[in-house]
Each structure stands twice: as C-alpha cells, then as structure tokens.
C-alpha cells in the first residue's frame, strides 16, 4: 500500500517537470474578471522611468485612470537630438496645440545617388503637413500635462531597480535627487528611459542593434533659409550612408544636417562630410551651432515585458526601419501601456501580473503595428541595400500614386485604401525600376573591374 503511494508520488514528481516545460508557448487568456488580489487601502503604485513622449503619455494615462503614478526624469530641460517630425495623427490623438509647431513641412525632396531629385508632396491636401517641433518644447508640454492629470514628477536620476523575490512584493526604485539617495517602492514599473535603458538592463531584457544618428545644426543666411521654409530634404547614396539616409531638416531658425548608419558607425564623420558636400550649394556659408549624436534602436528588445515591468518607446525598440520614426510610436506605446495597466487593475484597485501586461499591452500593440514595422523593414531591405536600389526608389517616388500612399500611411498610420489597378501598376513599376537600375548597377561593376 505504502509502496504503491510512494510509487505514485515518485511517478508524479517525474511527470511534473515534463508537464511544466511546454514546448509551445502558451498564453493563458482569461476572459472573465481578473483573479488578481484587490489592493486594500491604497491605489496601485506605478513608476514611469523617463519622461519623454513615451513616459509622459504613460504617466498621463495612468494618472487619468486612477493609478498613483511617479514620473522620473533626470534632465527635464534637455534638448534631444532628434528630427522632431511628427505625423498628423499624433496632433489629433494627443491633442498637441498648434502653437508648439515650429514649421509645417509640405514638401519633401529625395535625392538619389546620381542627384536625381523627386519632389514629394504634390498630393498633399492643403490641411496636410508634417509638423516639425523642438523636442524640448514637445516633451515639456507632455510632461506638464501628465503632471496636471495627477502624476508626480520627480527630477532625479534612477540608479537601479530592485527586482522583488516574491510575487507580490514591490519593486524598489533607487534614485538620486539633489545629491541624496532615495528609494521608492512601487508595484509596477514602466521603463521609458530610451535607447540605453537602465530598466531594461535591470530586468535583463537583452540588447538590440542600434543605428547612430549624427547631426549638425547649421544656422543659414536668410535667403538660404527661405529655400527650406517648408521643405525637407532626404539624400540617399553610399557616400552619405551605406544603410540609411542623410537629411536636411528645417528647424525653428536653422537646419539640421545629418546622417545615420548601423553598420559603419566608425565612418560617421566621413558620411557627415559627404552630406555637407552633397547639399553644399544650399547650405554653404552657414555656421554650425551644435553637433549631436544619438543611438536609434533598430528592432525590439528580446524581452519587452518581464514580471510587472514593461518597456515602451525607444527602450522597447519601437522605431521603424526605413524612416527611423520613433516619437509617435513612443507616445502611443506609452498610452497603450498605461491604459492596459488601468484595465488590468480595474482602475488601480487590483494588483496585476506579467500575463496581464502581455495580454493587454504587448498583444494589442503587436497586433496593431507589427505589419507596419514589417513592411518598413521590407522596404529598407529592398531599397536601401545598394546604390542601384536607391536609384530605383527615387524613380518610383516620382509616381503620384506612390506619393499619395506613402504620405497617407505616414500621416495617419493607417493602411491607405488604394485602387487595385493602381496597386498592380505600382508593383509592376517597382519591379521594372529595380530591374533596370540593377542592370545599370551590374554594368557599373563591370566598368570597375
């Protein structure tokens, strides 16, 4: 009798490990009300590390939903090196007031390696434009709004995040403020601290490949600045970047001339010289007022949610390929993460767990945007690989249908509804252009050898 039960126990002990190691990923989706324990006597506490567009949007959503939110920022008045372009849908969705916008860019010019220039923007409606803002202006507006909703802003540097050892113990955020060390216990942490995220390091989220974006802010003479009144320029070519593009973007009273690369970071200065040479006629005589550089993530981190810590924005790696756009996705992911926490905790009343974060935030985010990201990755692979492909890209951009589709997808972040016939023509022209330019490319190789 005893041996039989002993055998049964041993049998179940051996069987148990086999059952708890699933080969396939299982996500338990509970459609019924949450089975998390309710919090007594206080609301759920959340810490948002980093108060850029991502962190501020998350803090705003959390505070508006009733969660006690602490927003950490190490340099509230910092000016981030950034293109500063945001799409129209961001102005609507995040209620950005018009007074923050420095410029309305309605024309875009792309230059191929052989300087074939195409004017983008013929299809824009009068009320459509790309808004150019100063990051410090946008960031402080979003931060102030989060504060007015009830988030507590803490100007301090987060030094480390203590991971709890038991399932409902709090996370402890260690930070230094006014040269003193402090600690804050919270239930949920949102990491919005950018490309070198400390939160990501604390939860061992893994690293990602980064591009480096390098730019110089140049003050031009008035007549030259007039040319860039509402025009932004993009340059492609192996001389200016082997796997990205170089740009001349107008800012409030100067232009930002820069370039980026993933694979040849050590040559970035050479590429910068090359873009200055390419745009020479239009920017000569200008004075360099600032030089800045910043890493841009190329793809999401291997882990974006662990325990009750979620990563958003650049910390998670939500930057599209091909265009390098990150501001909208940062703000949107912040808001979605904040709303996910509100929903899972039922307004701050209940504790949440990792599954809640994955189900309400990651799953929703991936479902909504993975196609966009995949498509832009495909475009980058096809068109940024070689000079021949870049020539084909610029040729294609001359077509009005392509321009309309591109702008609509960019401005509204929705798959623009096109015409089947025009789509087919576009695909046909794409293949044709790529083939012709590749033929020329092969001939060029022949000339070299």
């Amino acid at each position: 009798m005893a041996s039989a039960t002993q055998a049964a126990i041993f049998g179940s002990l051996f069987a148990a490990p086999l059952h708890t190691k699933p080969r396939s990923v299982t996500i338990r989706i509970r459609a019924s009300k949450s089975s998390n324990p309710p919090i007594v006597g206080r609301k759920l506490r959340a810490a948002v590390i980093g108060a850029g567009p991502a962190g501020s949007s998350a803090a705003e959503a959390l505070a508006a939903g009733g969660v006690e939110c602490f927003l950490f920022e190490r340099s509230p008045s910092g000016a981030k090196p950034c293109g500063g372009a945001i799409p129209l849908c961001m102005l609507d969705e995040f209620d950005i007031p018009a007074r923050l916008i420095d410029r309305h860019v309605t024309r875009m010019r792309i230059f191929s390696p052989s300087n074939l220039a195409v004017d983008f923007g013929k299809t824009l409606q009068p009320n459509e434009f790309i808004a150019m803002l100063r990051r410090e202006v946008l960031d402080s507006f979003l931060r102030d709004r989060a504060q007015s909703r009830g988030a507590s802003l803490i100007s301090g540097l987060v030094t480390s995040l203590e991971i709890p050892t038991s399932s409902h113990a709090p996370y402890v955020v260690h930070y230094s403020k006014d040269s003193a060390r402090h600690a804050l216990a919270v239930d949920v942490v949102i990491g919005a601290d950018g490309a070198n995220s400390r939160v990501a390091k604390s939860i061992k989220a893994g690293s990602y490949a980064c591009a480096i974006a390098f730019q110089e802010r140049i003050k031009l003479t008035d007549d030259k600045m007039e040319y860039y009144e509402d025009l932004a320029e993009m340059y492609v070519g192996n001389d200016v970047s082997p796997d990205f593009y170089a740009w001349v973007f107008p800012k409030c009273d100067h232009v930002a001339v820069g370039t980026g690369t993933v694979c040849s970071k050590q040559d970035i200065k050479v590429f910068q010289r090359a873009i200055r040479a390419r745009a020479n006629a239009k920017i000569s005589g200008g004075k360099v007022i600032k030089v800045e550089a910043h890493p841009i993530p190329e793809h999401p981190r291997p882990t974006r949610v662990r325990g009750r810590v979620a990563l958003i924005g650049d910390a998670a790696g939500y930057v599209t390929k091909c265009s390098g756009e990150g501001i909208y996705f940062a703000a949107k992911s912040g808001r979605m993460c904040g709303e996910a926490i509100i929903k899972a905790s039922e307004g701050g009343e209940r504790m949440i767990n990792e599954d809640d974060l994955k189900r309400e935030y990651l799953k929703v985010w991936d479902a909504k945007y993975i196609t966009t990201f995949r498509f832009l990755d495909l475009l980058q692979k096809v068109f940024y690989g070689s000079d021949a492909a870049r020539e084909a890209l610029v040729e294609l951009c001359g077509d009005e249908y392509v321009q309309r589709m591109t702008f609509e997808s960019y401005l509204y972040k929705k798959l623009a509804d096109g015409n089947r016939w025009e789509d087919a023509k576009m695909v046909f022209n794409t293949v044709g252009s790529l083939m012709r330019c590749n033929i020329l490319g092969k001939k060029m190789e022949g000339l070299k050898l």
Partner: protein
Amino acid sequence: MSISMALLSPSTHLPSLSPSSYPKPLLTLKPYLSLRPKSPLFTTKASAENGAGAPGSAATAVEAEPKVREPAEPVAVKSGSSGEANGSAGPAAEVEVVSLFEDARWVNGTWDLKQFEKSGKTDWDAVIDAEARRRKWLQDNPESSSNDNPILFDTSIVPWWAWVKRYHLPEAELLNGRAAMVGFFSAYLVDSLTGVGLVDQMGNFFCKTLLFVAVAGVLLIRKNEDVENLRKLLDETTFYDKQWQATWQDETPGNPK
C-alpha cells in the same frame, strides 16, 4: 551619452562652413579619394590598379588617369558598346573648383538623345552605357546637388523593349536551353527506368512535381552563388519577425514575478 561625448570633442574645432575649407578636388583629387580609406570603391580600384589582369588594369589605369587630369572628360576610348556613334571629343578641360560630370551628350541634366542616333534611330544601348558610366563616375566623385542644374534623366526614358532585347532575351535563351536539356534527359531517364512515355509522364502527379521543381530550379539557381544567396535571403526575410516575436518566446517557468 558617451557616444555623443566622444563625437563632440573633436568636432568643436569646426566652427564654420566656408567653401574654402573644402579640399580643392581638381588639384588634390587623389587625397580626396584617400579621405575615405575604408570606402570599398577605393580599395577595389587600388587592387585593379595593382594589376589584377594586364588588359584590365591597363584599361582602368587609362580610364582613371584622364579622370584625374581632366575631370571634365571621361574618356570613351575602349567602350564595350560597339554602337557608339559619336566619339565624345568634348571641350578641353577647364580647371574648375568643383569637378562635375561632363560629357558632350549630357545636356541640361539629361542625355541629348539626338546625339545618340545611329542610322536614323536612337541607339539605346549607347544611352545605357553612357548612363552606367555617369553613375560610376558619380559613385567615385559624388556631386553636390544643385537647384540650378537639376538631374532629369531616369531609366524609364529608355523604352522597355530596349532593355528586353539587350538583357532579358540572352538570359531567357540561356535558361530555356538549360530547361530543355534538363527536361529531355529527365524524360529519357524516367522512360528508360519505368517505361512510361513522355505523354503518359505528364499525366502523373510525381512527374508533374519534378517538372515544377526543375523549372523553379532553373529560374532561381542561375549561378553557383545563388544557392547560398537564396538561403541568406530566406534568413533575412524572417529575421526581423523573429526579433519581434522574441518577447513571446521568453516563457521561463518558475521565474519570480
């Protein structure tokens, strides 16, 4: 932070952007090329000049020399295309500060098709060759874009049949020939092994699959490198997706929450 610090320190000595601070490319063209030591173009050019093959290096050496001395004149001494009607004996080189691409037939940012006429019709092959040479020149000597001399030529100006005749048809002939040989010998082999004739083979599902594989193989694998390239392509297309799904793979049971 550290990246920006490292990059900011050397460049604080570059206050202004006056044109005189640029190296004068005509007189110092070689040093200009050497500013980019890691550029693959420079290194392969160097290897070509080191005598990869006698005629080859002579060709590039001759081709390179005029480019240095007279940047205004790309010499069309021994061009591949036989149909070059007019030798490009353009104007003598003017010493300019900026070396631009110049050719007698390149007018106002596009190729003057009238200068490419051969027996009354435009010689598209010569246009394609000239454009390839221009792009190669620009690859080595990138030009500044300017609003005064916009580039207007793009490859869609050359009609589709010119491309087909020159590039598609020879390749098509090659591939069709391969397919025919593979097909004939497979049909013979299957017939000798199973006794099933050609017409009856086409009715069999397995044979139809083999036919499909043979056609696909002939189309996709044209050179030895294609096998490796296709595998790399497959990896590349799925790589980004794998990076996105990585967060969903991370199910480590027993992790304290």
